């Protein structure tokens, strides 16, 4: 998300680049970036860090499949989803489970901006839109 200030956005993006190792966010590099910012505080440091946080969060979301489920979920399913998404996106994708009873049944998988909807609530919603 752009902040409206090009210098802030550019600096946040620069920090993001420094935080990546082989396309994934490296916690050590993030700690290094934060230490650097603490030591050499840039103008509008808070805004830069907010923009940096958003970019890092988006980057983490790209490498993480959030599997929302209503009923119990087998760990094997989670691993299968992670493997499928890793193949599809050609980057390492891990999966985490999150319970959501509003789905009624089925799954909803979110990887970055993409949502894979196979829940009953989602299908009912689509049906309601189509009627």
């Amino acid at each position, binding site marked *: 998300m752009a902040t409206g200030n090009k210098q802030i956005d550019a600096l946040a993006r620069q920090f993001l680049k420094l935080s990546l190792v082989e396309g994934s966010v490296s916690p050590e590099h993030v700690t290094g970036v934060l230490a650097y910012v603490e030591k050499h505080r840039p103008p509008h440091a808070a805004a830069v860090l907010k923009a940096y946080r958003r970019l890092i969060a988006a980057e983490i979301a790209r490498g993480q499949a959030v599997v929302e489920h209503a009923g119990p979920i087998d760990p094997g399913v989670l691993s299968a989803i992670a493997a499928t998404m890793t193949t599809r996106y050609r980057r390492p994708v891990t999966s985490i489970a999150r319970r959501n009873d509003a789905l009624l049944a089925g799954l909803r998988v979110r990887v970055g901006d*993409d*949502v894979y909807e196979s829940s009953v609530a989602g299908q009912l919603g689509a049906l309601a839109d189509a009627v």
Partner: protein
Amino acid sequence: MSTVLEQIEQQIARLSTKAVRKNTGTIRAVADGVAKIEGLSDVMYNEMVQFPAGAIGIALNLEEDEVGCVVLGDISTLKEGDEVQTTGRLLSVPVGRALLGRTVDALGNPVDGKGPIAAKENYPVEKIAPGIIVRQSVSQPLFTGIMAIDSMIPIGRGQRELIIGDRGTGKTTIAIDTIINQAKINKVGLASGDPKFRPVYSIYVAVGQKNSNIVRTLVALEAAGALEYTIIVAAPAADNPANQYLAPYSGAAMGEWFMENGMDALIVYDDLSKHAVAYRQISLILKRPSGREAYPGDVFYLHSRLLERAARLEGKGSLTALPIIETLAGDVSAYIPTNVISITDGQIFLETDLFNQGIRPAVSVGLSVSRVGSAAQIKATKQVGGKLKGELAQFRELAAFAQFGSDLDAKTKAQLDRGSRIVELFKQPAFNPIPIELQVAVLFAMQKGFFESVDVKKIVAAAQSLKEFFATRKDALLAEIRNRAALDQDLETKLQAACAEWKGAFTA
């Protein structure tokens, strides 16, 4: 048998559990009809996006980590953090004959309270204009029913003719007259059963107009029986700028359906000045770099890509465009007027001074031009009105000189006299288009000097009397002119005799 049923059930079960992929984003800010969205990494330029509560938007600014969308619909329900989805579809509107006689908004939804529209097809709002190979030169006339235009600034099917002038100079009236005239011609042509007859359907796009003005236009078209051949696309002043920006493109899509299905259509954009203003508003909110008069850099492309969609296609139909531009204090050299003048195939310039002098339509002969020229005129009009533009231009020049001196030679006096008669002859009330055959008859009478003995102040009455005479008593002769479209020796003799008969009976 049960195995077969099981197979089908399994297939249904597989289908129903198939995951649907959606690309999503999150609203970060909403202001002035524009939403800034984080995410939507797969969105296409100009793609429709789905907001919660049924509102849709169009992705106009694709930036590195945000998307700027104009929202079409109610933005009051949108809030920060709402999820937005891509649809994978470009914006499209319903098209077809079902829209005739209806008033729709920029998205093709009916706004006239006449119920839903049973349109079977949709066309994309944005479309690349036809290329060079598929185009045909403009050679078929499109009669406006306005004598000054049909005789001096003829318009052809597939042409783009700009109507330009200050506010209150009769720009919309000319457009409405033209639509009414098409309806009149359609009725006569379709009743005749002539298989070669090609009706012209009209689309009136109102951009940034007052609702009261749109209603007035609607009533005028209905009263003239022209609404059944017309689609009205309304994006009034109270509509959000996104709808005002889209309305002309929606209208063009509706017109293209007629063109691509072998029919002829006429589209009026009323007006493109307000359209440019709406686009400027959107662009400034989207923080696009602004240029001259704060318009964005692509304001020329905004209108060129719209007007290029008007064409006459080889083996298909045509789309004629009449864009309207409002000038300020007659300044045709302003940014938007010069842009549109350079795109169109000519312009009809309306002057405030002429309008105030009672010369209506207030067409300025000197500044008006049709670049298609006489190619879009029937032979009969060329025969009787070929020299009119020159004569009238000469008259204006002489009239300006005559103000300074009182001693004028006989030739100059005759020219001034003839010029002032032509000016009077071209006066025409609003919403009263004249059929082309009647125009030919009147101009013939002018050419042969039947008005010379009539006092200049009584020319309008005399012309009216002549029109009534022809319409009531010489119907067969008018039909002959209409069908032959050229004056031969025989027709000229008949016209001469008819004019002489009228002159004998006319008492000024």
